[in-house]
């Protein structure tokens, strides 16, 4: 995942990367593993420093580069959403849908893009429009969740 130049560039732009090794840093792995409930490797967490180290997104297990990259973008969306920055959150989520529409994370991103727009505008039609857009992901769990908005 990390040998992909696009992934590496995205990480360099948005994150301070920290690696804790299960065998080479046993004490640190125990300390941080308990704090963040990490019981398996790889576990990759997006930690919000502005919110006292709150975890905003978790990625557990290996993913191919594009799926990993979309998880990182999705995580930034969730981070912005949690901070009440709904326009930024929608931008992140739409980026996943528009630029990586075949990635596994795309249906989840579409769902949260609709929620972000609704939270930003208070306009319930954003949810209805999102539910209709799930025609391209009809079998996803997120389509089922959005179906109540129709």
């Amino acid at each position, binding site marked *: 995942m*990390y040998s992909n130049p696009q992934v590496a560039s995205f990480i360099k732009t948005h*994150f301070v*990367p*920290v*690696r804790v090794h299960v065998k080479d840093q046993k004490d640190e792995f125990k300390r941080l593993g308990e704090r963040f409930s990490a019981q398996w490797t790889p*576990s990759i*967490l997006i930690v919000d420093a502005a919110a006292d180290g709150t975890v905003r997104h978790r990625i557990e297990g290996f993913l191919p580069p594009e799926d990993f990259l979309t998880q990182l973008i999705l995580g930034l969306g969730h981070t912005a959403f949690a901070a009440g920055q709904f326009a930024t959150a929608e931008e992140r989520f739409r980026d996943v849908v528009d630029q990586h529409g075949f990635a596994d994370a795309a249906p989840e991103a579409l769902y949260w893009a609709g929620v972000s727009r609704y939270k930003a505008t208070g306009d319930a039609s954003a949810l209805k429009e999102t539910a209709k857009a799930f025609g391209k992901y009809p079998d996803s769990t997120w389509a089922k969740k959005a179906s109540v908005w129709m």
Partner: protein
Amino acid sequence: MSTATEPLIAWSNNFDGSLEKARNTGQYVLLDFSAAPM
């Protein structure tokens, strides 16, 4: 001649210091619990 490749990501192993750095730069910490060779 070295065949080693330069890592693309400059990983830190100092979580607390990195959290402070992220706080100051407006970035987020990407914390990777790993078993991969270092």
